[in-house]
């Protein structure tokens, strides 16, 4: 839950409040971008933070900050992954899943998915969002999320067992 008075202060032009908010949001945005945009995550995170800061005044409900920022970060990460292409490797800093070797395997499998499939797995299975929330963030219908998630998991399973 964000500090709502900090968000309000940043919205009203308090630069030091904006600076503190950036400290809070930057790692959160980077985590989303790393999962989706892989080795283009830094570019995606920078674009996302610019969009967040530029549009902060349009956020009506400060408590919704993280959901709103997540939506922007996901959009920028998918855009970066698609437009920059050539995703060569997952950064090692992606959070581990327990066993380090298992983590490497999972990351390797995620890398084989296309950005849209990777985004849905990140939002549902790593970020723990509902299908409705993921649909809103990705700007697609609920049914699209269901089918995309089904295909992404099937593809993941197929690669995993191959």
């Amino acid at each position, binding site marked *: 839950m964000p500090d709502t008075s900090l968000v309000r202060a940043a919205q009203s*032009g308090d630069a*030091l409040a904006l600076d503190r908010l950036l400290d809070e949001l930057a790692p959160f945005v980077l985590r989303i971008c790393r999962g989706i945009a892989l080795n283009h995550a830094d570019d995606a995170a920078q674009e996302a933070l610019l969009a967040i800061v530029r549009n902060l005044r349009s956020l009506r409900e400060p408590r919704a900050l993280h959901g709103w920022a997540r939506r922007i970060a996901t959009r920028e990460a998918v855009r970066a992954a698609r437009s920059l292409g050539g995703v060569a490797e997952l950064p090692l800093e992606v959070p581990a899943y327990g066993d380090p070797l298992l983590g490497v395997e999972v990351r390797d499998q995620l890398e084989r998915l296309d950005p849209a499939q990777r985004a849905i797995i990140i939002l549902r299975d790593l970020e723990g969002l509902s299908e409705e929330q993921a649909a809103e963030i990705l700007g697609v219908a609920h049914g699209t999320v269901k089918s995309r998630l089904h295909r992404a998991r099937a593809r993941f399973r197929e690669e995993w067992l191959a």
Partner: protein
Amino acid sequence: MSLQVLDPIERLHVIAAGIPGAAVVERVLDAPFDAVWATATDFEGALSCFEVSVSGARVVERDGDRVTLESRVPVLRFRQRVDIHLREGWCLMQGRGFVAGMAARPEGDRTRFAHLEAARVPGARLTQPLIRAKMILTRELRRIEKLARARG
């Protein structure tokens, strides 16, 4: 997982995007980072030599990376409180009527430096157009470079 998303220069551009009317100038200064940063953050010494809107300053409080300054405004001769967030390569200052920022990173033997200025008064940019603000910032960067070279 590293939490460092933006270097100080990139961070200053992000902050500028959130401040209406902010002017930013970025240059590579011909002086080493340590000398440049020591000069730029010498609030009680060098600040009034490169910043035209300050005729003197005194640090009244330091608490970790937060600094409070009392600065004197030339001509008008009043004092104002300035709150500062200060880290290596990062300095964001805010008074009642203004925001100023400085960010730097080493670039070989030289220093990439960005300087931000914005008025916190609605319509201020009408009385001081962006191009004039950038000219003033450029002049201040030259002064910082000169002072840093003398120091280094």
